[in-house]
C-alpha cells in the first residue's frame, strides 16, 4: 500500500460537478442516488456492523419523510428544523420499537421489525387527518434557498439544483459522522457483537444496550434520508413504508456489499442507474432485479465491493 488514491474525495468532487453538466435529469438522478445511499448506509450500521437483519427499515425512512413534510407543509417550519426533527422523531420511534426488537434474535428480530414497520404503514395509510391516508400528500415545498444566490457561481441554478447541493452536503456530513461512529470504540464493539454475541456478553458487554444504540442511530439516519427524500419526491406516500421498500434497501446494501463501509452507497448507485437503464426498455424491472439478486446471492455473496476487492487482492498478488 504505497499510494492510496483518495477515491472518496474524487467521487465527492465529481458529484459536486453534476449540476454543471447542464442536464436537469442528471441532477435529479444524482439527488436520488445520494439520498438512497444514505438510507442504505444507515441500514448497514445494523446489517453489516452489528449483524442484525432488520426487515422494517423503511419505517424510519418513512417516519422521517412524514415528519419533515408535515412540519414544512402544514406547520410552515423552516427546513433546518424540520430536517433535524425528522431525524429525532425517527430515532425516537426506533428507540421505542427497538427496545422490544433487540430482546429477540435472528428471524424473530426480523419478524418484529417487520411487524412494527407494517403497523406504522397501516397508521400512515389510514390516518387521513394527519398523513393524508392512502393518497399521502403531494406538493411538499422545496426549502427556501434564496440565500444560496449570494454564493458566487451558484446564483444561476434553479431550486432543484440548489436543493441538490444541500442534499449532497448533508449526506456527506452524515457519512463523516457514520464513519466516525463505526471507527469509534463503540463501533468496534458492534463488530464484536456481530462476530460473537455470546462472547461479547461474557467479556462484560451489555449486548442489548449496544444493539439498541445501533438501532436508534440507524433509525435516525434513515429518518434524515427520508426527510430529504420527501422533499426531493415532492410528496410523501404510505408506499415509502411498505415492507417491499424495506426489502429494496436490503438488496441495495447487499448488492454493494455489506462487508465494507462504502458498499451500500455503491449498491444505491448501481441499482438506481440500472433501474434507470432497464425501465427505459421494459416494464419488467422486478424480473431483472430478482434475477440480479439471485445471481448475486449465488455468485457474489460479498456484493460488488466484495468482489472488486477480492479481484484487486488477486491482481496485487500476481
Amino acid at each position, binding site marked *: 500500500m504505497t499510494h492510496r488514491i483518495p477515491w472518496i474525495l474524487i467521487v465527492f468532487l465529481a458529484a459536486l460537478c453534476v449540476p454543471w453538466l447542464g442536464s436537469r435529469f442528471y441532477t435529479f438522478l444524482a439527488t436520488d442516488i445520494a439520498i438512497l445511499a444514505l438510507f442504505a448506509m444507515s441500514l448497514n450500521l445494523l446489517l453489516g456492523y452489528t449483524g442484525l*437483519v432488520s426487515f422494517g427499515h423503511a419505517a424510519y425512512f418513512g417516519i422521517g419523510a412524514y415528519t419533515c413534510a408535515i412540519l414544512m407543509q402544514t406547520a410552515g417550519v423552516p427546513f433546518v428544523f424540520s430536517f433535524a426533527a425528522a431525524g429525532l422523531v425517527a430515532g425516537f420511534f426506533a428507540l421505542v420499537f427497538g427496545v422490544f426488537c433487540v430482546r429477540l434474535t435472528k428471524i424473530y428480530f426480523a419478524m418484529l421489525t417487520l411487524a412494527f414497520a407494517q403497523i406504522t404503514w397501516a397508521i400512515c395509510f389510514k390516518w387521513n387527518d394527519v398523513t393524508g391516508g392512502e393518497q399521502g400528500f403531494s406538493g411538499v415545498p422545496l426549502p427556501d434557498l434564496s440565500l444560496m444566490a449570494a454564493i458566487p457561481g451558484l446564483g444561476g441554478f434553479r431550486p432543484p439544483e440548489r436543493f441538490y447541493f444541500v442534499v449532497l452536503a448533508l449526506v456527506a456530513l452524515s457519512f463523516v459522522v457514520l464513519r466516525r461512529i463505526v471507527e469509534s470504540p463503540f463501533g468496534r464493539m458492534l463488530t464484536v457483537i456481530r462476530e460473537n454475541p455470546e462472547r461479547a456478553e461474557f467479556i462484560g458487554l451489555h449486548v442489548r444496550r449496544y444493539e439498541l444504540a445501533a438501532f436508534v442511530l440507524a433509525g435516525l439516519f434513515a429518518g434524515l434520508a427520508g426527510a430529504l427524500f420527501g422533499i426531493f419526491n415532492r410528496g410523501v406516500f404510505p408506499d415509502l413504508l411498505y415492507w417491499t421498500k424495506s426489502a429494496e434497501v436490503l438488496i441495495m446494501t447487499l448488492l454493494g456489499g455489506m462487508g465494507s463501509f462504502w458498499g451500500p452507497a455503491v449498491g444505491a448507485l448501481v441499482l438506481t442507474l440500472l433501474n434507470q437503464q432497464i425501465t427505459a426498455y421494459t416494464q419488467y424491472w422486478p424480473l431483472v432485479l430478482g434475477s440480479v*439478486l439471485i445471481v448475486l446471492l449465488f455468485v457474489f455473496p460479498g456484493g460488488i465491493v466484495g468482489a472488486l476487492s477480492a479481484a484487486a487482492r488477486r491482481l496485487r498478488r500476481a
Partner: protein
Amino acid sequence: MEPSFIFGQFVGGLTAAMTLFLIASGLSLIFGVLRVLNFAHGSFYMIGAYLAWQIVQWIGPGGEGFWLAVLGAAVGVAVLGGVIERLLLRHLYRREELYQLLFTYALVLVIADMAKLVWGTQQFGVSRPPSLAGSFQVFDTTVPHYNLFLVLLGPAIALGFWYFLNRTRTGRMIRAAALDREMLGTLGANVDRLYTGMFMLGSFLAGLGGALVTPIKSIIPGMDVAIIVEAFIVVVIGGLGSFWGTFFGAIIYGQVLSFGILIFPRFSSFAVFALMAAVLILRPWGLFGRPISR
C-alpha cells in the same frame, strides 16, 4: 348489534381464516423443518390461483371440472416448488438467514413478473362449481355452500396433517428433521429428499389455497405480497413451526380482522399487526409454540 349480523361477521371471519390456514400451514411446515422463512409462499399461492383459472379455461368453465383444476393447480405449484428447492434453495441452507430471506424475496419479484408476462394484468374470476353453487340461511344470514365447504376443509386438512405427522413413519422423520437434521442424516435417513418433499408439500398447500379462493376472490397481480404478510401474521401469532398454532392463529386472525372492522372501522388492519407485535413481544415463540432452546 343484531345476533344475525354478528353471526355473519363470524362466518365471514371463519371463511377467511380457513383459506388463510391452508396457506399459512404450508409456510409454517416449511419453516418448522427447513428453517427457511419463505417470502415466495404468497407467490406460490398466486400461481395456484392463475393455474386454476387457466385449467378452467381449457376444460370449459362452469362445470365440475373445477375440482380437476384445483388439483392440477396444486400439483403444478408443488412441482414448481420442488424444482426451485432442488436447483437453487438447497445451496443456501448453510448460509446465513439473510441470504435465504433475500433469495425467497427474489423469487417473489421474478414470479410476479412472470405471472404478468403470461397472464397480463387484468382481473380474473372463477365461478363456484355447480355442486356447491347454492346457499342456505342461518340466523337470517346467507351462507354459500362453497364457504361452508372451505370452513369444513380447514379442520379436515388439519386433522389429516396431525395424523400424518404423528402417526406415520414419514411424519416421524419430518419431526426428527425439525429437531436435528444432522443426527437424522447420520442415522441413515435421506434428509435431502425429505427436505425437497417438505418444500413440495408446503408449495402444494399454497397452490391449493390459491386455487380454492378463486371462486370467492378475484385473481389480480399483487395478491402475492398482500397474502404473504397475512400468512406471516398467522404463523407468528400461532408460533412459527407449530402446526396447531397455525390453525388457531388463523382463526384468531380471521375473527380479529372481521370484528376489528366493526370496532375500529379504520384501524382493523392495524389491530392485527398490533396483535402480531404483542405476541412477538410477550411470547416470541407464539401462543401455541414452544421456545426454541439454542
